[in-house]
């Protein structure tokens, strides 16, 4: 699988220079001067960043680099201090989280947010867009939304099947394990039919045996034409699946490029291992544990 993926990856980003802030041929997301500080701490300070449509882009960086904060800003869950960003040509500044999602940019959370006292199926159905019955008066138009509900249920079952959750569909989401909740959250985000999906540490806590199939799902998403931006700490995963990697450290983009460029980048190694390390080999910075929470 990985050779196939890397072959595709080389094609997708052909001719793009591996330098921070480089322009992409067909960016779906363009970030300009986005800054956010908490008190004296500047958590995010991104000069320019573009995400290429239809690719898998990894966002990596040490703990506290500002990855989750950047996700929150871009998806309308936090307010920027400065800067602007465009998704699919529309400026998103000031839009609430639900508006961003409706435009096709859907995110998941690092700390999983399963709706615990709803069943797995209800979690999925809730996410379906444009339901007549989800409006207060529409709720009384039972015959109308029943038909939509049946179609959504079918779609949900397909997704649950893909994520190995179909057997659990009538259980409370709160009874799922941590890894299963991650899977549910991803499946649920796909119910929204996003053109771009942003996954904050989707593999954290997921059984290694399942990680492989999760990776296949993610590449399948790209092959369906969706754009994936994901945060991850596991270097094997990142190198194996990404078309492009963006490295964040102390809120700034310090490097971006193909997996092979990043593997060789001295700044990345410094950022990960600290300035004082005496390992001069240019090895990929590997992450020991699978789960970071």
């Amino acid at each position, binding site marked *: 699988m990985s050779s196939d993926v890397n072959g595709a990856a080389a094609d997708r980003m052909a001719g793009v220079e591996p330098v921070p802030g480089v322009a992409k041929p067909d960016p779906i997301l363009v970030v300009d001067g986005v800054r956010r500080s908490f008190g004296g701490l500047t958590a995010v300070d991104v000069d320019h960043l573009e995400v290429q449509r239809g690719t898998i882009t990894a966002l990596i960086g040490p703990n506290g680099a500002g990855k989750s904060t950047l996700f929150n800003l871009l998806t309308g869950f936090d307010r920027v201090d400065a800067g602007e960003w465009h998704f699919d040509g529309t400026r998103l500044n000031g839009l609430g989280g639900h508006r961003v999602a409706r435009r096709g940019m859907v995110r998941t959370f690092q700390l999983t947010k399963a709706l615990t006292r709803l069943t797995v199926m209800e979690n999925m159905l809730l996410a379906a867009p444009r*339901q007549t019955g989800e409006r207060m008066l529409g709720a009384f138009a039972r015959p109308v939304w029943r038909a939509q509900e049946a179609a959504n249920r079918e779609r949900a079952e397909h997704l649950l099947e893909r994520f190995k959750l179909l057997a659990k569909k009538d259980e409370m989401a709160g009874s799922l394990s941590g890894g299963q909740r991650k899977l549910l959250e991803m499946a649920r985000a796909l119910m929204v039919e996003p053109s771009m999906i942003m996954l904050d540490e989707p593999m954290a806590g997921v059984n290694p045996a399942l990680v492989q199939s999760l990776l296949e799902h993610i590449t399948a998403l790209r092959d369906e034409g969706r754009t994936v931006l994901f945060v991850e700490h596991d270097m094997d995963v990142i190198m194996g699946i990404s078309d492009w990697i963006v490295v964040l450290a102390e809120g700034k983009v310090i490097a971006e490029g193909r997996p092979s460029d990043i593997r060789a980048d001295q700044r990345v190694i410094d950022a990960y291992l600290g300035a004082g390390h005496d390992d001069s080999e240019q090895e990929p910075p590997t992450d020991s544990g699978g789960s970071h929470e």
Partner: protein
Amino acid sequence: MDILQVLADATRSAIGPVAAVYALAAIGLNMHFGYTGLLNFGQVGFMLVGGYGVAVSVSTFGLPLWAGILVGIACAVALALLLGVPTLRLRADYLAITTIAVAEVARLVYRAEFLRDITGGVYGLQGFAGGFYDLNPFPSGRYGFGWLAFNARDLWMMTVAWGLVLLASVLMWLLVHSPWGRVIKGIREDEDAVRSLGKNVFVYKMQSLVLGGVFGALAGAMLVVNQQTITPDQFMPQVTFYLWAILLLGGAGRTLGPVLGSVVMWFLLTASDSVLRQLTSSGVITFITNSEIGGIRHALVGVALVVLIVFRPQGLIGNRKEMLVNVK
């Protein structure tokens, strides 16, 4: 001790108009807390504006009763917007603080001297309920059997009040068993997750606050029509806490939870009152005077609630499966 007398008193109160009024207001609270997770500690404020909507419109301005009820509902909508617009985007506790404060401020405003010409100040208003009893279709007489008989006036009041409870319950059932209800319950669990799926959480919370508030206002209107008088000081914060007790007793997040809760609560309150009264008057208990009974029965009901919460935290008909699910 006359057990039959106790049962008769308790049953009359459990199916009486006041139990229906509390059930209706608790249905509103169930919308807020049971389904949406909104902490409303000022439900009595909605009852107050509903009650005064009727009383002021009819007594002070001479409008017909139905117009008074509409005014009460409009006031509830306005109150919900006033409470919700500044707080529903903030953390849950802001709504809690605001509701308890605003309900109390509303009571103080309605009883204020400068509004005496309109609201009757501390003395309140009377003589606004005639229109309701004029509509009574039941010919006068006793209805029921033996100790469980009601006069035509009470029967009419009970029919309308329980009819409203039924209507509200059906409405709630339809709503919470719809995609709208699913979003509402999702918000109760985690509003950020719901927002991330493209739902406008603020609007849903507002709709819930308004609808539950309107139920509260209707309950207030029924309450004062039943009494045929209104005074500001009957809308003290403890009314809200009774409603919470009713909701938790019956089972939050269940359509019939607040209805069952109100019936059982009024049964227990009246039964304990009746028992204590008989014991003191027959001299079995000498250390309690009649005037202390009111306080003691509340303490007893409080103990019963504590026992309930320890042994049956989901309430009488709550869903234990939902309750036991680990929350985060």
